[in-house]
C-alpha cells in the first residue's frame, strides 16, 4: 500500500473512527489524541499488515488500543467531568444525546460490537477479528446489547 493509498483510506474512515473514539472517550480533544495516535501507530505498523483487504478491521483494532491508552489516562487524572456531563458538554443539539448517553451507559463489551456493526457496517466475522472474540460471542453481544439499550431508553422515557 502506498502512502497516498494509506492516507486516502484513513480519510475515508474518518467518520467511522471518530464515532468509535467518541463512544469510548470523554472529549473531542481525547478523540483527536486517539485518532492521531492510531494513525501514527498504523503507519508504523503498516508493513506488518498482511492482507490489505483487512485494512479497516486492522485500523479499528489499532484505534481501539489507542482509545484504551487514553482511557488509562483517565485513571491517572483527577477532576474529570462525569461521563454524562462530558457528553452533554461535547455534543450540543441536534444530536441525540439520550441515545448517546444510553450507548455510553452500556458496558463496553456490548457497546463496541453494536457500533461496529450497526454504525460502521462491519460484518460479524470482521468484528470478531477486531475484538478477538468468537463470532458467536459477537452475535450474542449485539443481540443482548440491543435489548439492554432498548431497556435503558425506555427507563429514560419512563
Amino acid at each position, binding site marked *: 500500500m502506498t502512502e497516498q493509498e494509506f492516507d486516502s483510506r484513513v480519510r475515508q474512515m474518518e467518520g467511522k473512527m*471518530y464515532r468509535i473514539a*467518541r463512544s469510548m472517550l470523554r472529549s473531542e480533544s481525547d478523540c483527536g489524541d486517539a485518532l492521531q495516535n492510531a494513525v501514527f501507530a498504523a503507519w508504523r505498523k503498516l508493513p506488518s499488515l498482511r492482507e490489505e483487504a483487512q485494512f479497516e478491521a486492522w485500523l479499528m483494532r489499532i484505534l481501539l488500543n489507542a482509545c484504551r491508552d487514553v482511557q488509562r489516562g483517565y485513571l491517572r487524572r483527577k477532576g474529570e467531568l462525569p461521563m454524562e456531563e462530558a457528553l452533554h458538554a461535547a455534543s450540543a443539539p441536534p444530536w441525540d444525546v439520550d*441515545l448517546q448517553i444510553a450507548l455510553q451507559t452500556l458496558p463496553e463489551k456490548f457497546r463496541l460490537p453494536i457500533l461496529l456493526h450497526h454504525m460502521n457496517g462491519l460484518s460479524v466475522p470482521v468484528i470478531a477479528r477486531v475484538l478477538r472474540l468468537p463470532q458467536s460471542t459477537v452475535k450474542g453481544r449485539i443481540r443482548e446489547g440491543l435489548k439492554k439499550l432498548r431497556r435503558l431508553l425506555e427507563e429514560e422515557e419512563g
Partner: protein
Amino acid sequence: MNEFHFENAFPLVPPVVHGRLEKALEEKNMNRQYAKRSSVVLAVVMALLLGVMGLAYAATQTGILNYLVGGEENASQALKDSVQTVAATASGDDIQIDLTGAIYDGDRLALSFTMENKQPENVALVTLDTVTLNGKWVPINFQSFQDQWLPDVFTVDVAPTIRNPLSGGMLSAALQEDYTGIVQGEATFVVSRPVKEMVVVDPWMWYDLETVIPDAEWRKDYEDRKRAIEQSGLKIADVFTMEVGYWLQEGYTPVDVSSLFLLDRAEYSDLAPFYAGPGYGERPAFSNVTNRAGQMQVTERITLSFTFDADAAKESRIEPVLEDIPLENGTVHFEKVVVTPLSTLIEIRIYPKDNTQEAKEALMECYDTAWLCNANGEPLDYLDMEGEGWRGYREETDGESYLVIETSWGGMKTMPDALGFSFPHAPETDDPDVQRMRQEFTEKVVIPLK
C-alpha cells in the same frame, strides 16, 4: 436492521478532530517522541514571547532545553552539559530564522530554532524542507513547527498558540549513521505566502461558544483563537456567506479556523482520487503544501549552515550488552539498550519457540508491551518528555519471524544504578481479572548501568 438511529447518536466530526487527523497524516513519518512536551513548552515560550513582543528576544527563552523540557530548571545536569552552542542565522523574504541550540546523543540530534516574520501584515507559511549532515539527507522524526504560520492565528489545542510574528520550535532526527568529529549540517526551510487574499469561512467564528463548549478550559482555547483571528486583519466571512464556491469566485483563498484550505465541491471532484472524500459532515479541505496550487506560492528558500561536535556525546552514553533470556514460549534477545541524557531506548526481539503460526500467535497474544523501571520495580524518574512504544512482528527473508517490542523514552532526571525491564504475559482482554494479572505477573530483567 434495528430501530435505533445510531447515526444521530454522535456529533459530526468536529473541526478539532478533523484537524488532528489531517495533521497526523501529514506528520506520520515523524517520531512524535517530544510532541506533547513541546506543546506544553511552546505554550510557555509563547507566554514569554508575548511579554517581550516588540523587543529583541533572549536566546535562553527559545533554547533547546525550553523546547525539550520546559527550561533549564527542569533539565538534568547531564542534559544541560549536552547542549552545544550552534548559533546560525539566515533570512529571506522578510523571514528570519535562527538556530538557537543543539543536542546530539549518538542516536538523535535535536535542534531548536526561532522564526520571525518581519512583515507580519502579510501572513507567511514556513515549512522545513530538508536537513543534511555531512552532505547527506537525514529523516526528521519530529518537528514542532510543521507548517508554521507567521503570525499563527489558527492553532489551538494540538500545538501552542503563538499569536505574534516571532515563533519557534524544534526538530529531532533519529540518525542511522555513526558520526565522529565535527559534523557539517544544513537545514533548509521554505517560505510560502498566499497569492490571493485569505478569508476565514467557518461557522465556528459565529457559534455561541458558551453554548457549544460548556467546558471552560476547552472553550478558552477557542475563544483565544477566535479573538486572534478577529485581531489578525484577516477577512472573516459572515455567517450568511459560508458557501466556499462564492469566495473562490470572488477571487479569495478560503480557509477554515484551522487554516485548512477549503475547496469547492466541484473543484474537489477534479482532484479525486488524489484526495479522499471529506470526513463525515466535513467540507472538502486540504493542507498539503505542495498541492496548494494557485493559492500559495513559494517566495523563498532559507538555508542555515551549522556544525556540531559528534564526539561530545560519547562520554554520557551507556550501552550495556545483555544476554538472551529463555522464556516458556520463546527467547528474549536484547537488540538495543541505550541510555543517554536525551533518550532511553530499548528494543527487544522475542523469538517464538518454533516457526509455526501457532507459536507466533501465542507470542502476539502474550506480549504486547514493555515497562522500564528501576531495579526495585519502581517508576523511573524521567524528564518530562513524551515517549512511545511499538510492537509488531517482523518477517525475515528466510521466513524467520519474531516479535519486536521497542520502547523509546526521554532521558532521566537521575540515573539509577540499574534498570528493570518487565513485560506482561497474559492475553489482552477487557476482563478486569485478567487485566490485573497482566499487571502482576511479568517477566523482569535487571540491566546494570554502572
